């Protein structure tokens, strides 16, 4: 007998708790009954299950009855229902692809979990975990990052473990010859009572290969060794021209692209007018925005190929993962 909607609402309300107690049932609702794959005009109580199981394999207690209070039921396989979390949310355990940052920055992306001397650590950029060189080893790292509401100490997930310093243009020069010459020059200035002194700066800083850092988790239970919307990493692969790639990041989430250039040398702007020259980079089309820095870049087979750190309106610049691993002494 076809019931009207309000009657079935009452029936569902009375029976909901009893139905949800059964193994496999993850949701209940009202819908049109399907018979042999065809929707009928009969309203019924729909029970969504993790997996459809032959009735003979279920005990009476777990079996969804054919009717409840005279209304037919229908069993639909929905799989496990998970809350959809935004990458800017707080995650414990935390996977790659979610918001993270040093307390002094806005927010970047937790790239992935890697291994340093036998322990799992967070891999991201220097400018995400080490505030572009302006941090101390041991500084607290927040998940989510400060811009996404991360606070110390509630969201303190890890401590800065190691970073590869970025060589910026215009920094004091390491050139011994130039510094020796200028010392003599400044001595001359002092002799003639001039108040002027000179300083040697690098017009062209040393080349950078990576913008990378790692952080050690406070609690190993916070490690979720996979990437949000991608899954577990299946090894590494060298980036090549034409390779299809993907990433999961804090701002633009899951995006795909293609490696359009290799062996790229690029001048990259860091806030406050700082510039740094990077060599041996991979360049893909636009697949990121501010806040996606630190994202792990993978090929179609979920093999790790790079660490995203910069981009323009039409491009994404990626460190080669082999350079990142060798600079930090890490592995998967």
């Amino acid at each position: 007998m076809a019931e009207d909607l309000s009657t079935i609402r009452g029936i569902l309300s009375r029976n909901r708790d009893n139905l949800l107690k059964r193994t496999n049932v993850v949701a209940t609702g009202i819908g049109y009954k399907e018979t042999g794959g065809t929707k009928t005009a009969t309203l019924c109580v729909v029970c969504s299950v993790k997996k459809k199981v032959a009735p003979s394999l279920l005990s009476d207690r777990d079996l969804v009855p054919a009717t409840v209070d005279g209304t037919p039921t229908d069993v639909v396989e929905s799989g496990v229902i998970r809350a959809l979390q935004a990458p800017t949310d707080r995650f414990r355990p935390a996977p790659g692809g979610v918001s993270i940052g040093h307390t002094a920055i806005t927010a970047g992306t937790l790239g992935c979990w890697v291994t340093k001397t036998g322990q799992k650590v967070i891999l991201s950029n220097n400018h995400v975990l080490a505030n572009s060189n302006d941090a101390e080893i041991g500084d607290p790292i927040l998940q989510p990052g400060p811009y996404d509401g991360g606070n110390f100490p509630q969201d303190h997930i890890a401590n800065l473990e190691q970073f590869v310093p970025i060589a910026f243009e215009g920094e004091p020069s390491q050139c011994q010859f130039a510094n020796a010459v200028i010392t003599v020059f400044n001595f001359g200035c002092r002799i003639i009572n001039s108040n002027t002194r000179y300083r040697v700066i690098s017009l062209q800083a040393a080349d950078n290969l990576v913008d990378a850092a790692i952080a050690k988790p406070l609690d190993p239970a916070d490690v979720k060794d996979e990437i949000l919307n991608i899954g577990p990493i299946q090894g590494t692969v060298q980036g090549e021209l034409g390779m299809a790639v993907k990433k999961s990041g804090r701002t633009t989430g899951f995006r795909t692209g293609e490696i359009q250039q290799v062996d790229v040398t690029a001048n990259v702007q860091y806030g406050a007018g700082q510039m740094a020259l990077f060599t041996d980079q991979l360049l893909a089309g636009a697949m990121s925005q501010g806040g996606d820095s630190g994202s792990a870049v993978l090929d179609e087979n979920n093999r790790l190929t790079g660490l995203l750190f910069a981009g323009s309106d039409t491009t994404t610049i990626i460190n080669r993962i082999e350079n990142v691993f060798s600079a930090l002494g890490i592995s998967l």
Partner: protein
Amino acid sequence: MKTIVAVILLIIPLTALGDDLDMPSSIEEVKKQHEARFLNMPGVVSVGLGLDPDGNQAIIVGLDGPRPETAAKIPAVLEDFAVVIQIIGPVKAQ
């Protein structure tokens, strides 16, 4: 006489070596040789290796915006390799 023969025998392999040095440069070498000059031009933000519209290997020079004066100074071909100019915009840490 023996000395002359010895000298000639020494020269022959050296000449052959000289021929090797005249081999055409790889695109990586050509890029390496010219990229500092390009990166010093106003508006050049990147130099990399990619493909031209016909699918041939090319040196790709990225500009931060329309830069007619810089573009005019960049050759279309360098030692048989195409040079492609792309306006990619300023590259920023994200």
